């Protein structure tokens, strides 16, 4: 057990995966010599050499496409896109190529690649450096989507993502990079597609992921003071997502709140709420509440951004609404 920062857990997972498998290579802008804009790859070029930690030009479309082609030709690439907002430049490679290759070639190949990218606001980075676009990828058959909540989760889920035979979009909330947490010595992969109960409760279920798990836990703490025991489910994986875990918790609490930092409308929470409204309908004792960002670009000014971000209070208010 060692206390580790989130970003170091990422570095550790990359290093361990590269150690375990020579075919794992990293590609990205300034990830090599400079160690990565958020230091996620610090030291890896020295350790594994420039042939396995590739500093790329500013060519998002092509480095993601190249990762797909490399994955079809024997490598297991992990490509970093510096901010999730820049995946807008690489959607063809991810969606039309990597996601579909296996299916449209009749199962002839897999595309074992990972696209790592940070999302999220809180750094006053403005409208083009803060977006949470995971819902786009979750809509695409053939892709898996992962979003960890703390250092140990980041380590285990990234190991699983790199091991996975299918293309995975691995999303790191940049506000978590500095977060500290315990990482067990010799930790292994955490299976994709399985949620975890981050806090048990009987009165309402909060379904969430990524940085919003911490916010939900804070909300649960506040609610506990009011005598309300909220269960917090960390989805971990958004595609596929652990429907059984969510419906199981609902069967106990009969109330559901879905929370995330992404824009609420057409966010991942919509799918979860909609599924609950169908398959969980008979268990529901209250409206299904969603908590997400308002329908506007992420504003720059600190004051605006703080008002924009869905926080613990918003989640707690959502839970209270299910109990009215």
């Amino acid at each position: 057990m060692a206390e580790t920062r989130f970003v170091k857990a990422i570095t550790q997972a990359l290093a361990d995966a590269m150690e375990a498998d020579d075919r794992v290579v990293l590609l990205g802008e300034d990830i090599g010599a400079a160690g990565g804009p958020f230091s996620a790859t610090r030291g890896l070029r020295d350790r594994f050499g420039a042939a396995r930690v590739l500093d790329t030009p500013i060519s998002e479309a092509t480095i993601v496409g190249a990762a797909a082609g490399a994955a079809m030709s024997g490598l297991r690439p992990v490509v970093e896109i510096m901010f999730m907002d820049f995946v807008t430049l690489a959607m063809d490679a991810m969606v039309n190529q990597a996601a579909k290759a296996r299916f449209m070639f009749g199962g002839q190949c897999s595309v074992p690649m990972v696209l790592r990218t940070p999302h999220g606001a809180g750094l006053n980075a403005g409208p083009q450096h803060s977006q949470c676009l995971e819902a786009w990828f979750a809509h695409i058959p053939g892709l898996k989507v992962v979003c960890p909540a703390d250092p140990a989760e980041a380590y285990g889920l990234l190991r699983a993502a790199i091991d996975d035979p299918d293309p995975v979009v691995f999303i790191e909330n940049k506000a978590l990079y500095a977060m500290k947490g315990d990482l067990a010595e010799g930790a292994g992969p955490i299976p994709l597609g399985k949620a975890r109960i981050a806090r048990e409760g009987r009165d309402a279920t909060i379904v969430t992921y990524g940085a919003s798990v911490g916010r939900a836990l804070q909300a649960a703490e506040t609610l506990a003071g009011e005598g309300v025991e909220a269960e917090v489910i960390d989805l971990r994986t958004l595609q596929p997502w652990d429907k059984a875990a969510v419906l199981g918790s609902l069967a106990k609490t009969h109330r559901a709140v879905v929370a995330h930092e992404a824009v609420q409308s057409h966010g991942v929470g919509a799918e979860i709420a909609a599924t609950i409204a169908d398959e969980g309908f008979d268990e529901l004792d209250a409206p299904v509440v969603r908590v997400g960002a308002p329908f506007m670009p992420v504003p720059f000014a600190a004051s605006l951004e703080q008002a924009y971000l869905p926080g613990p209070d918003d989640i707690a208010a959502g839970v209270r609404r299910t109990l009215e």
Partner: protein
Amino acid sequence: MLLIRRVEETLSSHFAAGDIPGFIHLSIGQEATAAGVMSALRDDDTIASNHRGHGHSLAKGMQLDGFFAELFGRADGLCKGRGGSMHVADLSVGMLGANGIVGAGVPLSVGSALAHKTLGTDRVCAAFFGDGALAEGAMHESLNIAALWSLPLLFVCENNGWSEFSPSDTQFAGTAPDLAGAFGIKAQTVDGNDVEAVAQAAQALVAEMRKGGGPRLLECKTTRVHGHFEGDPQRYRNPDEIEGLSARDPIARAAAMLKKRKVAQKTLEKIADDVDARIAKAVEGALASPLPDFAEAAADVYADPLTGGAAHG
């Protein structure tokens, strides 16, 4: 080459007869580029192709039966009927797929060439694209990265003068070799309808690449004889132009060349007969092949069917 021609003629009539779903893009008149380039490649080299990929596929050694079954949308197709003409692929011979997105095969090739290099092999990758694809940003990014990383990647531009219904000069302000030159990539232009010229150039370039020479570009000037897709009435094209193409027909030219070299007429006829027999058998097999099973397709979106509580969707 003859195989490609006969296959596509067969496809053309089956398309007209309604046996083939979707749309197909034929490379009739362009066969020499695929055949010539592939003469320089080994089985373990890779290629990425585009929407007009039948020639590339067959020249790289794609299985004929699976090819036809795929285009006919059948269960025995190489892609189990899920891809069709625009996505036909045979990974077992290093053919990384036709591609429905103009220019998209090129970044895939960058990655494939990177894999060859990283894994310490002397394999090369060839990327096939048309003159119209030159306008896509992916071309530029790929040329740059291939040059910077000195990748074993042969860029093959099949310049047939058309991008769908638009002539090339409305589509690209430069030329493929000039563009390559801006990145310091050595380029060469050949008569793409002269299979020997293509083969010689490709073999020389690939030999340099195998020795670590980095990327090369080969521009093949060629001719699209049919429409952009089958069924295209080509109203935008001067009938005289199409008429004139027969003088440049790569198959006729190759046949004349072989005759001049005293290859017996009988040998040529035998080749043609073999080709026709193979095609007939493949078509028969394709037509006899069952329609693909939906449940099987649905189960093949991921390599790894998930267990436990998780379900995709």
